[in-house]
């Protein structure tokens, strides 16, 4: 039995909107949840935080009927319920925004918004109404695109907004957001805040999962912390602050150290008047010195990903050239890019990063196999050894090279992807949203890693939609707006205002 911390959250007198008691869940090899309890009141924003693999998503999936608990009670407004499927959950008014995008990209935005809840006349689909209502829903989350746009044409961030709109629009009384902002940039995040507040005011209960503690501080009425699949404590409105949360999550205080700016000398990466497919009309030029950490900020859809993809040779470029240490890199060939010492950690982990059905070990060594092979033959021992080292270096949990990657939590999968590239000892490391869906603990490790690599003279370029991250990490910041670099900020010039100013298209401040 778990001691249930009392709370002074809003309206604690009436039976909670949603409550689970002593939920347990096992997966092959993992005990994801151990007697976890949780309670949500109407008109309350409950933040659930915890390190990667703490069990947040699993718990949410159980609440939404995607997975079934092995044991435990499930009460809606005090009534015991058995939630065995998504249908029952949504009947009970519970909607979940999944941590990973789950859209049908052969359909348009409107159809995705209403998937499973289509407005109907008899058996028929009421397209007119669907488009009408879709337009409204999109407006609410501030997404300016027609309901008939094919979803495939939207960038990650925009697709995420569609998912949010879907949940908000479902008329559910409980809306669960599993890291909704992980692919949103500042602008959209602010938008989301107002959406959440609006829901709150209409008596909807919101469960909000995020690794961005800043967001939690601004939004949450109450915080429940999970650690290793167990309740690790609660914080009421008053007691919500960064350090308190971190202490509960990791059970220790994290020391933040600020390092001096560095990275001088001949640029190792030199991008000249690059024109990408998404923004063929715009030119992008920048260069990075060894040991320098350059951040790229901007709103979703600014074209940051396109730039990284083009530099790494994933997409063909419309124009421009890329040089590493002076030698020109043939474009449109990731292989060439790798040969020249480039590496890219992509933004879409599930589709572009990990091999979900393959073992963690195999994942980590995949990219570097060729370099360590003898006459094209894999050297079994070296590989195993190497994999073990990498897993240890990045502290992947569980540290089992034979575990199938899909059973790792989001954050740990990200570490696996990083490991794959570190194994290559790149000269230039490109990171697209490197800490998307990564908890503070792991975040610190990733930051530490970036700095370590920088010390060793690796040039690092990272795209981030998290201003805090930009401010913390970058020696120099490029801000993008609609496919071009609208300004460059040195460490001195760097500030939230300056970034937002440039990101929203203001004239360069120089």
């Amino acid at each position: 039995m778990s001691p249930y911390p009392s709370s002074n959250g809003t309206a604690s007198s009436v039976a909670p909107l949603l409550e689970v008691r002593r939920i347990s869940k096992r997966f092959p090899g993992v005990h994801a949840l151990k007697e976890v309890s949780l309670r949500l009141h109407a008109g309350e924003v409950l933040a659930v935080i915890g390190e990667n693999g703490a069990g947040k998503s699993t718990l949410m999936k159980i609440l939404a009927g995607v997975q079934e608990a092995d044991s435990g009670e499930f009460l809606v407004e005090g009534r015991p319920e058995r939630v065995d499927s998504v249908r029952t959950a949504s009947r009970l008014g519970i909607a979940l925004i999944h941590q990973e995008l789950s859209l049908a990209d052969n359909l348009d935005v409107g159809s995705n918004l209403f998937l499973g809840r289509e407005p109907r006349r008899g058996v028929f689909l009421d397209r007119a109404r669907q488009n009408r209502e879709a337009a409204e829903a999109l407006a609410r989350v501030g997404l300016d695109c027609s309901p008939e746009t094919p979803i495939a044409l939207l960038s990650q961030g925009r697709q995420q907004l569609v998912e949010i709109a879907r949940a908000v629009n479902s008329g559910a009384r409980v809306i669960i957001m599993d890291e909704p902002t992980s692919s949103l940039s500042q602008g959209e995040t602010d938008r989301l805040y107002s959406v959440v507040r609006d829901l709150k005011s209409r008596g909807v209960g919101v469960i909000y999962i995020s690794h961005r503690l800043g967001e939690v501080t601004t939004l949450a009425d109450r915080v429940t912390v999970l650690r290793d699949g167990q309740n690790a404590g609660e914080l009421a409105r008053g007691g919500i602050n960064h350090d308190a949360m971190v202490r509960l999550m990791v059970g220790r205080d994290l020391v933040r150290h600020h390092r001096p700016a560095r990275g001088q000398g001949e640029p190792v990466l030199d991008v000249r008047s690059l024109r990408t497919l998404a923004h063929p009309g715009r030119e992008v030029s920048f260069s990075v010195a060894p040991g320098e950490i350059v951040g790229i900020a901007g709103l979703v859809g600014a074209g940051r990903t396109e730039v990284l993809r083009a530099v790494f040779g994933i997409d063909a470029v419309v124009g421009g050239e890329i040089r590493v240490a002076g030698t020109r890199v043939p474009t449109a060939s990731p292989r060439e890019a790798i040969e020249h010492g480039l590496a890219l950690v992509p933004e879409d982990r599930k589709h572009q990063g990990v091999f979900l059905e393959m073992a963690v070990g195999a994942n980590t060594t995949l990219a570097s196999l060729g370099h360590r092979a003898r006459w094209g033959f894999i050297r079994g021992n070296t590989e195993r050894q190497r994999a073990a080292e990498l897993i240890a270096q990045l502290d992947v949990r569980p540290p089992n090279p034979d575990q199938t990657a899909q059973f790792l939590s989001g954050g740990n999968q990200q570490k696996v992807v990083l490991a794959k590239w570190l194994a290559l000892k790149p000269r230039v490391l490109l990171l697209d949203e490197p800490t998307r869906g990564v908890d503070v603990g792991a975040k610190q490790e990733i930051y530490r890693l970036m700095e370590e690599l920088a010390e060793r003279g690796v040039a690092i370029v990272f795209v981030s939609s998290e201003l805090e991250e930009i401010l913390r990490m970058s020696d120099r910041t490029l801000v993008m707006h609609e496919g071009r670099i609208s300004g460059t900020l040195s460490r001195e010039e760097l500030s939230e205002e300056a970034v937002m100013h440039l990101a929203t298209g203001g004239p360069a401040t120089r």
Partner: protein
Amino acid sequence: MKKLLGIFGLLVAVFALTSIANPQFVSAYNLQNLIRWTSLFGIISIGAAFVIITGGIDLSIGSTIGLVGSMMAWLLTQKGWGVGPTLAAVMLCSLAIGLAHGLLITKMRLQPFVVTLCGLLLYRGIARFLTDDQSQGFGNSHDTLRQLAIGKLPISGGFALPAPLFILLGIAALAAVFLNLTVAGRHLLALGRNETAARFSGIRTDTLKIVAYVLCSGLAGVGGILFSLDLNSIQPSGLGEFYELYAIAAAVLGGCSLRGGEGTITGVIIGTAVMRVLYNAINILGIPTHLEFAIIGAVILAGVMTDEWVKRFAARRRAARERAEGATA
């Protein structure tokens, strides 16, 4: 619709060229045959399309046709059943087949390719076993029933519309409505492209898949009935062999993607028409039949390739336009 331009162009081209080379091609008689065959194969292709849209595949279509065909003739002539019971029996049988496929694939999580490959062998075997490998036929009896397949609705100028055409149109209309206008149809497309997303949205994915397989086998059953009525002599070991490939080819030609989630009924029918017109053209032009496979293979390939080119060209055009806009902006 854009996706269909390439294949439709191909159809028109072959049609035009052949009718120039030999005017008999557009004679009322030939067009009637052409329409009848297209209708018969169109029906089974629509079935195939449903399964393909769910991202699955049905290799047992041909064998189902064989089983239903021989079983019907066998029941009517050997067993002396009435027309009503017989039709009911064979249709039930084909629907049951589809149900079995659906259950095995959704509940037992077996791969569609495997399940239906076993079906391909199994139903052929059953057909041969039932009839003891004796070829079946209706002789001159059941001529009224046979009108379903060989009947004609005369219209002006010695030209008559074959009965199967109407059956095809009926089925096609229903299928198109189902796929485009109903909620279930929408769900089918969604699950075909991203099954997890569909499940997360509370869609009954399993039920829908099962429906798709039932429809496919059911239409194969209808096809089996019509084919056997049309041929009036059924060889259990031969009837329908390879038809699954024709059906799938037609569906794919018509723009269905085997990755699931894509496909239109119109497309499927055009795809079928292309195949039938090709076969017909080859005979009409007196090209040696042993060249037929080579030609059809080559033409289909050419068709798919041009289709691809068209798409790319369109894409490049769009990109160019955007580039222009970008420059001005």
